């Protein structure tokens, strides 16, 4: 009873928050209400995750809302990203409030869409019905489209249109996949109210029509893969990430991509069970993952726009997660850990890139040379963030990448290992070169003075600190949750 109450609270909190924002009288109050609302939602999420830990899974609304270890770990990632981004947002928009470019109307629209994005992504994670899950993901596209062009310019409108069309069409493919999956299950004659429930499908996956289920998975992988930014369907991603305001880029990269990949993860055990555990879907995931890594590596080497660089790095990291999932076994665990690590450090990098961009008036890395002296806090955050992203040693991303390489080696897929290391190596050198020139290069121009409040400093310190700790030691409860989630994807009961 209480569990279902908290699930409902989690789903409805963003809507309540959105309404509260409309009642605010100044842009500053709107932003403050947004921070508070997201913190409240995060609290509800924490309680739900805690309950899941005790009993394995919780459900509400006759099984239509459902939270198990796999969705709980993603809920944790989502709330981390949203909480940090909301805290950061408050500082990021201060200059615009001062010079009047962020009016009350724009602030209200931004907050309403921000809450809308939170609600849609929560719906994706909580719905047990694969049709509603799809509807939630499509809603995230529609809601976030206008977040990209809050700062209206012709480039941001262009990025918004590309994002809208490419992702809508991509996600429509996923709907075709959902329908095909339902057709594959049609022989079971489940009653209408249970026909699309994941838990029911999971129980009967062995009786599905294997050919239809495989066809469904191709559509699903291409469709959700478009939204997850897997190459070669990633073309919208660098544009959208580079044009959106920094907090929006942070939620895009930190969680929205993962939400799409989460939908794919839900189908992996179904396809595997239906096709006799032959690893067919895993090989497809592996292929897309490697293509993404190699493509991203090729583009990163020639990239001078900091936010586009980070966007391509997201393509690479989603590729890494897909490779980990594709390897199966220990790789699944490593992939989920990597999703968490990436979600901690990519927003931090976008935060820093956004603030440095405000100071320099551009995102060109060549202009930002010597940022460490000009901006002690955000310069350090960017340098640290980039180091973590490329997998420098004691940090968490290194650990999860190492686990994936080890999984590849132990399963004997040396081609995968070779390509993985080559792509990661190219990214390492390419990004490190840029990071060093940003940090210690000869200054090209004199930027505006840095403004970093106590919240900003804490945000940077805590993020980097958590990444360092996770690289050395994973707390027991987190380890158990990751392990349970990995077992769900691997299809063990």
């Amino acid at each position, binding site marked *: 009873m209480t569990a279902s109450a908290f699930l409902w609270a989690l789903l409805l909190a963003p809507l309540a928050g959105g309404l509260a924002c409309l009642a605010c009288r100044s842009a500053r109050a709107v932003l403050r209400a947004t921070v508070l609302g997201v913190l409240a939602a995060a609290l509800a999420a924490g309680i739900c995750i805690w309950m899941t830990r005790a009993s394995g899974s919780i459900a509400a609304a006759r099984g239509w809302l459902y939270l198990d270890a796999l969705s709980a770990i993603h809920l944790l990632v989502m709330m981390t990203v949203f909480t940090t981004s909301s805290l950061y947002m408050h500082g990021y928009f201060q200059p615009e409030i001062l010079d009047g470019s962020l009016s009350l109307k724009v602030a209200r629209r931004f907050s309403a869409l921000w809450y809308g994005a939170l609600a849609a992504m929560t719906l994706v994670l909580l719905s047990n019905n694969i049709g*509603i899950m799809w509807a939630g993901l499509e809603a995230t596209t*529609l809601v976030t489209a206008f977040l990209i062009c809050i700062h209206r310019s012709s480039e941001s409108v262009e990025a918004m249109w590309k994002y809208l*069309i490419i992702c809508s069409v991509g996600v429509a493919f996923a709907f075709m996949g959902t329908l095909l999956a339902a057709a594959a299950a*049609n022989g079971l004659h489940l*009653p*209408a109210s249970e*026909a699309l429930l994941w838990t029911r499908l999971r129980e009967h996956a062995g009786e599905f029509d294997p050919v239809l289920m495989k066809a469904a998975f191709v559509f699903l992988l291409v469709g959700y893969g478009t939204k997850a930014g897997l190459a070669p369907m990633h073309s919208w991603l660098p544009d959208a990430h580079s044009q959106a305001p920094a907090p929006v880029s942070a939620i895009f990269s930190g969680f929205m991509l993962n939400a799409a990949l989460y939908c794919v993860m839900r189908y992996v055990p179904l396809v595997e069970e239906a096709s006799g555990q032959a690893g067919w879907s895993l090989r497809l995931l592996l292929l897309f993952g490697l293509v993404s890594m190699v493509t991203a590596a090729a583009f990163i080497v020639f990239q001078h726009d900091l936010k586009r660089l980070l966007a391509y790095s997201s393509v690479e990291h989603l590729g890494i997660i897909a490779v980990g999932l594709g390897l199966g076994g220990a790789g699944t665990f490593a992939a989920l850990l990597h999703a968490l690590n990436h979600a901690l450090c990519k927003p931090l990098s976008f935060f820093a890139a956004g603030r440095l961009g405000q100071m320099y008036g551009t995102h060109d890395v060549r202009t930002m040379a010597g940022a460490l002296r000009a901006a002690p806090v955000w310069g350090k955050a960017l340098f640290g963030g980039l180091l973590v992203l490329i997998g420098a040693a004691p940090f968490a991303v290194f650990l999860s990448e190492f686990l994936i390489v080890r999984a590849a080696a132990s399963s004997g897929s040396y081609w995968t290992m070779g390509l993985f290391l080559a792509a990661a190596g190219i990214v390492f050198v390419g990004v490190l070169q840029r990071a060093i020139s940003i940090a210690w290069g000869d200054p090209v121009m004199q930027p505006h003075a840095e403004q970093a409040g106590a919240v900003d400093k804490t945000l940077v310190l805590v993020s980097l600190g958590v990444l360092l700790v996770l690289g050395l030691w994973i707390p027991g409860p987190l380890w158990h949750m990751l392990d349970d989630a990995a077992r769900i994807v691997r299809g063990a009961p």
Partner: protein
Amino acid sequence: MLVLIVTNLLLLGFSQLKSCIRTVACQGIALGVLSLLVNEDGFTVWSVVMSGVVIGLKGVIFPRLLLGALRETNARHEVEPYIGHMASTLAGFAALAASAWLCSRLPAFPGRVTPLVAPVAFFMVFVGLFVIVSRKKAISQILGYLVMENGMYVFGVVILREMPLLVDLAVLLDAFAAVLVMGVAVYHINRAFDHMDVDQLDTLKG
């Protein structure tokens, strides 16, 4: 069934954006009627309401929104395809053949519907995609998206009659929101660029 095929081919052949929008409207109405006809338990209250919603949304509201957007933008009201009308129509026939072939390769779908349904659904998806990639005007891309959606709706409503109502409604709501958001986006594109030719949206690269 036949109406659906013909509207698709007409869409590929028309040169005026207005007639394209009307064609898609006809398709939406046909879709609503179809969803009523395939219902084998006869006319229940819900099935009538659902098909009414589909006709209202896809046959009346969407076209009105798009015609409104068209009026707002002072662009030339022609389709301006990259690929000529004749070639497009031929491509349409090719897509029809391809989808028939594709469906002969898939196992027969369960249920007592005509064997035509699955090929027509795939055909509509292909035509939608073709329109999206081959037209310059942003509104044409919305139309393509709508045709794609319609194709999936055919697939869903005919093959999976046991689709829960809530899911149906959520999907329709999404389609509605999509058209609304895209319509507003076209308005913004028009204001930012003074045109709505997507082939000129090419500043962001690399």
